[in-house]
């Protein structure tokens, strides 16, 4: 993961990071981490599916953007797409130029490809639900880790997908906005999408579907006895979670500007688990808090790593600290910073009583007149 933050890292080495850019960096990464942690919370916190292959769905979304955007736009505007493996950076700049003069097309392509990456994530989730329904927790974890590695190795070696180990450049759909404002707009768009996803999951988990998910997590047999299709419910949770992860992958690819297969190492999965466990499983506010804590600490270590006179990269120390915090949390506060709370639903009984009493009053006062 550390290799992939080219853009941010380069800027930091040049020492041109203003507080504003730093804040924007935090918010942008926060939106990606928020989407990933909220989807893991839906999958593990609510549905009880231990998804140890989060990075696979995330990578699926990013690879979709990397493989598709330049080719699609290049096809529309009639670029020569031969030798894509070598020329993808040039082609991406060409597409950038075209985008800068056609904002409408840029925005529609942006939205369309994001939908595609969510769809690819959902399809991967649907495929992953086959083992998820059948295997025990640990076997499922191993299967998903292995599948993620299979996807990464294929992407690294099969050049037509994302140009192999060199990676592929992704055009920026926001080039039509001038530079200082562009980062702000991109950040706000990403944050908006992330908050939208969070709100969607929050509503979903408060709905009857969320209650069924919890029931499945607690006792599959009892849920099935009440006539619920456990297989279908688990599948739905995994598909929704994976679609959100795929969307996050797409946004990440657009933000970083390059898709690099080695960037999608299993360490991603670990960091997302750290966020969810620190924040509190089964609590959407908790996941948001956990993601925020992680993002701030990670960005700070990334920012200050060149100022700290140590013979090694401080990022490693950060990972060790997170792992220790994770283990301590598991031991002494397994419910996380914000433990799961009972879901508040509308108390229809109280409302009905109130309405009836009011109506009764009205009718009685009417009769008095």
């Amino acid at each position, binding site marked *: 993961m550390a290799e992939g933050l080219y853009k941010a890292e380069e800027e930091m080495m040049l020492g041109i990071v203003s507080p504003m850019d730093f804040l924007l960096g935090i918010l942008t990464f926060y939106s990606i981490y928020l989407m990933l942690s909220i989807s893991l919370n839906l999958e593990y916190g609510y549905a009880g599916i*231990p998804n140890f292959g989060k990075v696979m769905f995330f990578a699926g979304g990013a690879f979709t953007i990397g493989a598709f955007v330049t080719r699609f736009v290049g096809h529309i505007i009639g670029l020569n797409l031969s030798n894509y493996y070598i020329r993808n950076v040039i082609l991406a700049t060409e597409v950038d130029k075209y985008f800068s003069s056609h904002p409408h097309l840029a925005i529609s392509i942006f939205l369309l490809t994001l939908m595609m990456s969510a769809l690819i994530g959902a399809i991967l989730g649907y495929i992953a639900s086959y083992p998820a329904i059948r295997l025990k927790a640990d076997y499922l974890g191993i299967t998903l880790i292995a599948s993620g590695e299979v996807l990464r190795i*294929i992407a690294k070696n099969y050049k037509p997908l994302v140009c192999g180990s060199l990676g592929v450049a992704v055009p920026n759909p926001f080039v039509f906005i001038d530079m200082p404002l562009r980062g702000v707009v991109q950040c706000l768009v990403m944050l908006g999408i992330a908050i939208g996803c969070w709100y969607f999951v929050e509503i979903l988990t408060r709905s009857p579907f969320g209650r069924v998910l919890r029931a499945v997590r607690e006792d599959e047999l009892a849920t099935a006895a009440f006539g619920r299709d456990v297989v279908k419910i688990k599948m739905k949770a995994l598909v929704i979670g994976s679609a959100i992860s795929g969307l996050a992958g797409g946004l990440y690819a657009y933000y970083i500007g390059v898709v690099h297969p080695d960037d999608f190492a*299993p360490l991603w999965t670990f960091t997302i688990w750290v966020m969810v466990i620190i924040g509190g499983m089964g609590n959407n506010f908790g996941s948001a808090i956990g993601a925020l804590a992680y993002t701030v600490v990670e960005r700070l270590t990334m920012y200050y790593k060149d100022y700290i006179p140590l*013979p090694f990269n401080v990022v490693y120390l950060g990972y*060790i600290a997170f792992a220790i915090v994770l283990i301590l949390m*598991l031991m002494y506060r397994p419910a996380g910073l914000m433990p799961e709370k009972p879901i508040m639903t509308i108390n229809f009984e109280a409302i009905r009583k109130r309405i009836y009493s009011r109506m009764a009053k009205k009718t009685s006062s009417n009769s008095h007149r």
Partner: protein
Amino acid sequence: MVPLSVLIDALTLSNLLALMTLGLSLTYMTLRVSNFAHGDFATIGAYITYTLLVFYSVNPYLSLPFSFILGGIISLIMYVLILRPLQRRGANLVILMVATVGFEVIIRNVLHIYADTVEKLTNRFFRSFIIRDSYIPFMGSLVPQVTITSTCIVISLLLTLYIVLTRTKLGIAMRAAIENPQLASALGIDVEKVYMISWFLAGGLTAIAGSLLPYRLPCNPETGWLILLRVFAAAILGGINSIWGSIAGSYIIGFSEVVGIYVLAKPPLNLPTTYKPLIPFSILIITLLLLPNGITGINWQKVSIRLRRR
């Protein structure tokens, strides 16, 4: 035909895998948790051997006892300080797995820091290092010494294990404690001691395999994680609850990887050899989906009945 050198290479890999898989099975049998930090014990072994070689010019084969002891101690620390308290607090399987992943991240990043620091301070390579081996001519091809050593280690280990597990009091106690902990402790067997011995052995054996790894592939702090999935593939293919099955599984995985990529890289397909890890990973996924109990878990009676009915 497959040349002898490829088979020798496959044998070396399989021997190393067998050592690691044996350890994984031992620990799986105690807590029923798949230990994701298992591969990193091997990396620790590799770094111990390389450090001793570089700074004290110790023969790598003579550093095996050091790696055995240190790997065992780290494995024991993991069990005593992390997994046992968590299990006593009633953590479920997933929580234990997440804890092992956390410990894996700790070990890996400590090794990263170690490698970086030593590289900066002494100007020597501490990443992607290999150790050169001496070769012995055999049947027209050269056999590396590591093949012979690892084969000897695996064979002697299997013999010792067989004798210990079937003929000695400790071995029988171990089997009893693993089979049925409650009953064993009721009969006066110290189950905790048995578990601790299993974890120590697991870490030690894996570290020995790790010490021999630099002979075969360039090692860096990530090596253990990369090899871990192969170890899981071998353990699950053989049936994770069976020691002998895990040995068989590691030979199947080792040979199918090395010989398989040799065949696939030949003219009809011409695949690049970088696809090599896909072979054990796909075997792993297919085994988990079709045969989750492994080859030793197949109920042969049922299979034969089914075949007869047809």
